[in-house]
């Protein structure tokens, strides 16, 4: 039986803010990460926990003007079942389906994935590739942090100790395409070896160059990262063989992954390049 740190279960956001300001505790949403930490096998468990599961203000999927907005407590199951996600950002549903299995998808949340700040977080490359914004709140008010600024270092976030992640906004762009690919050891219940999201915008037609290209990867660095050198290769280019070759080799040169229990640096680098090559090839239709 694990360690059982003290916990508060506020029923309103105001109460939650007050508790956090008074005695900061680690927020627990669906518990799929934190309840593993209290076993004490992966370092020190948190001294105090704030249960945010009952904060209904953090639930719900909506479309607001120019963005798809997901409450931080939105579960992967809710994402998979959401007609709005299916209509406006189907790739997010694809990503949610690759996470864990039914039990994890019923409890794990997109906010938890972001706040846990694992470099292997499966949805995080999509947040980066889609220029998502994270809305944070505290008794001091709300602020917005771009996904690109949310993970400053290994397992760190931009959240202050008294802040909660409230919701995530995915800006919508009708001419944007997004692709997602996860490479893991097995087909379910697997932490990624490489996880990748590629987004770009292009006009209609076969020979429209890509612009606003975003390539984000997980499990290849201390945080989820953008591969900016490779993005530069793809920016303004057509998805032809030459572009794919150049982008793949640039990516292999740009990444500096590590050997760990799940995979090797060599494999991660090679596979990231090969998967990117495939994504471009599939788009180019050659």
């Amino acid at each position, binding site marked *: 039986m694990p360690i059982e740190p003290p916990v508060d279960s506020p029923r309103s956001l105001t109460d939650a803010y007050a508790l956090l300001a008074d005695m900061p505790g680690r927020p627990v949403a669906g518990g799929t990460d934190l309840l593993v930490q209290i076993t004490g*096998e992966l370092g020190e468990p948190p001294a105090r926990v704030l249960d945010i599961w009952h904060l209904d203000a953090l639930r719900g999927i909506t479309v607001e003007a120019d963005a798809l907005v997901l409450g931080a407590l939105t579960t992967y199951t809710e994402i998979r079942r959401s007609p709005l996600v299916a209509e406006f950002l189907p790739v997010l549903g694809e990503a949610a389906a690759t996470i864990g299995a039914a039990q994890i998808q019923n409890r794990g949340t997109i906010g938890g994935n972001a706040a846990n700040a694992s470099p292997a977080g499966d949805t995080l490359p999509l947040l980066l590739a889609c220029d998502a914004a994270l809305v944070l709140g505290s008794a001091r008010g709300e602020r917005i942090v771009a996904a690109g600024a949310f993970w400053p270092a290994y397992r760190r976030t931009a959240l202050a100790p008294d802040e909660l992640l409230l919701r995530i906004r995915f800006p919508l762009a009708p001419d944007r395409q997004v692709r997602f690919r996860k490479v893991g050891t097995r087909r379910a219940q697997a932490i990624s070896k490489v996880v990748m999201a590629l987004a770009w915008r292009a006009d209609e037609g076969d020979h429209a160059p890509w612009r606003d290209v975003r390539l984000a990867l997980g499990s290849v660095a201390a945080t989820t990262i953008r591969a900016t050198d490779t993005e530069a290769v793809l920016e303004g280019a057509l998805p032809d063989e030459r572009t794919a070759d150049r982008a793949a080799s640039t990516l292999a040169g740009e990444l500096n992954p590590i050997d760990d229990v799940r995979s090797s640096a060599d494999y991660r680098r090679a596979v990231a390049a090969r998967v990117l090559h495939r994504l471009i090839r599939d788009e180019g239709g050659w």
Partner: protein
Amino acid sequence: MTRILPAGTQELLATDPLLVPPGSRTPGRATQRGPLRREGPAKLTGVAKYADDLVFPGAWYGATVRSTQPHATLLAFDLDDAFDWSQVVLVTAADIPGDNVVSLIRDDQPILVPIGGEIRHQAEALCLIAAADRETLRAAKRHLGVRTERLPAVFDPLDSTEEFSHIEVRRGDLEAGFAQAELVIEGTYRVGHQEQLYIENQAMIAVPVADGGVTVHGSCQCPFYIHRALKRSLQLTDAQAVVVQAETGGGFGGKEEYPSVIALHAALLARKAGKAVRMIYDRHEDLSATTKRHPAVIHHRTGVMRDGTLVAQEIDVVMDGGGYCTLTPVVLSRGVLHAGGPYRCPNVRISGRSMATNTPPNGAFRGFGAPQTEFAAEMQVNRIAEALAVSPLELRRKWAYREGDTTPTGQVLRESVAAIEVLEAAAEASDFARHSAQTQNARAARQSGARLASGIGIAMGWHGAGFTGSGEVHIAGVASVELTDDGVVRVLTAQTEMGQGTKTIFPQLVAEELGLEPDAVENAPQDTSIVPDSGPTVASRTAMVVGGLIIKAARHLRAQVEAVTDRPFADSYRDFVLEHGALRVDEHFEPYPNVEFDDATYTGDAYPAFGWACAVARVEVDLDTGEVAVRDVVSADDAGRIIHPVLAEGQVEGGTLQAVGYATIEEIKLLDGRYLNDRLATYLIPTALDAPRIEAILVEKPFSGAPHGAKGIGELPMDVGAPAVVAAIHDATGVWIHDLPATAERILAAMTGAPVPDPPGVSVPAPEGGAA
């Protein structure tokens, strides 16, 4: 989907693959499906009590303090004065009344390392603590320091100079064989650790008894191993040491010998505390400390003629035993005896060594050495077929043992040889020849940008039934059938149920002999104070050896009752009890006729009989990533006579998936002699989505030495799955992966010519400065 296929009915199969010929039912089999699982309803309702479900009011919690060094001298324990040690019980080696030895083959493994003693691996038990509650226990562990002096560590068995055992098997004239050969093929194959991964972690609860004895309840395969260990180290009499098996959530060999360690630990704590003590491992501790399948390095040199005739086999097997001997010599022995594969060869030399390394000891796991060596053997066959440009199916047809052939130990296979039958059954059911032609054409025509590639692969194997050599004679098992005072027929054996179906087939076999319904026969509990020592539940011996004993016991019981009542047993046994009281028949193992083995020279009948298996696997490989999806596997297995088709299929299906995991994703990396894959988030086994569709074909080629003809089935599928999958990967990609598991990393490196990943099973040294 499954079919029962009596040997020699291929023609029938060809015309209607789903037909089970009505006349083919074996006499003595009650129904086609067999009775329902005896303890099934209890398991399906949560009523069944596994060790951690047992409640002992006032029980304390026990924990093991382990080494964090791969090799060191234990200097001292430092007890922090800030902690009140009077509230806990601490047990060190000094508290052991008897021998400080985990009783197995060699007396090398201490129960706890004594002060001044040698620590030989990272997970080694140093001392034990028990407390009334978990919080106090955790605090005590935090306040206990261990002082050690590090010694140099050895991680690669090829570098080790400490040998646990060696064996050599010779037949014919090897030099002459190679001189004659027109083609010589060599290969080195390396396999890593594999975890049994029973879903129920190891667990033991010891309860002290007023007479100084102890009763241990827990998850185990072999209650009498534990019984012996307790008697010796706690200086108990037969009656004072009592071992009771709780419902056991899987074993696969992992609960053969290791439970003795936990039972000893729990018993030592319980006796000192004067309380019941629970030692329930969590998954992390279980993965870190308990035994794994032995890593091995196997080198083959094979001589063949251009026409495919096999003329010489030279095989060198090195197994990594880890820090202590445990069962390693027996594992090596089985590995060596199976290393040539089920093939006739006139000139053979197989040599095997088992070596010590500073890693946690390796032990029993389904297949027991054979999956490692048979993987290498089948890789070699498939590579030779490629070199000769013949079909791997054809080559096996040519090489496979027939009745009358002689094995490397000089054993003449007089009967029950089904190598060709399983080969043809699997080839037929999988349509091997057609698919193989298709995948080869596809490979030839493949464009450079293709993403997916399909492949098909075949492998066959054999598995000696029961203990090796004179093992059964040494065990001298006794099993009983009794008619109780209450008029109940009861089977008494030490054979444990761990999912494979013991509790279902034993009453079934006895009921058939007595003319009763299976439900009329009960199982005595696996409690060492009640049942005789019928030997361990290992080596696929339960159905064959002990099943045979209880059939004979039932026959004797029937004869004795009918001699008195002069009526059929079923109609008269209750009257018999009323008049004459209880009656029990103890059946002692008798050697199988004409089976002789010389342990000194390794010649003779290594096993009373062999089971035979063939697997055909189909895979899809992602050429971008090296990821493998095993789509389907056909496994044809001969177990002599099938007692219970549903349970037998369950063994084939489960064993096949374990083999698929072994082939593809189950990997343990080590750092400084410590397993890095020590959680379920890092040691991955296949999920339902990863599992292939498995078709089990049960072939029956009975063994006359067993009254029911059964040979055992549990281990067969484990021997053949991995090489079939790796052959299919080769068929898809054109690359041979010599190391297991054939991970995406190894496959992609082979396809792209990138540097080969580190060999499996060998620890990376600690970073500079010693301890990691």
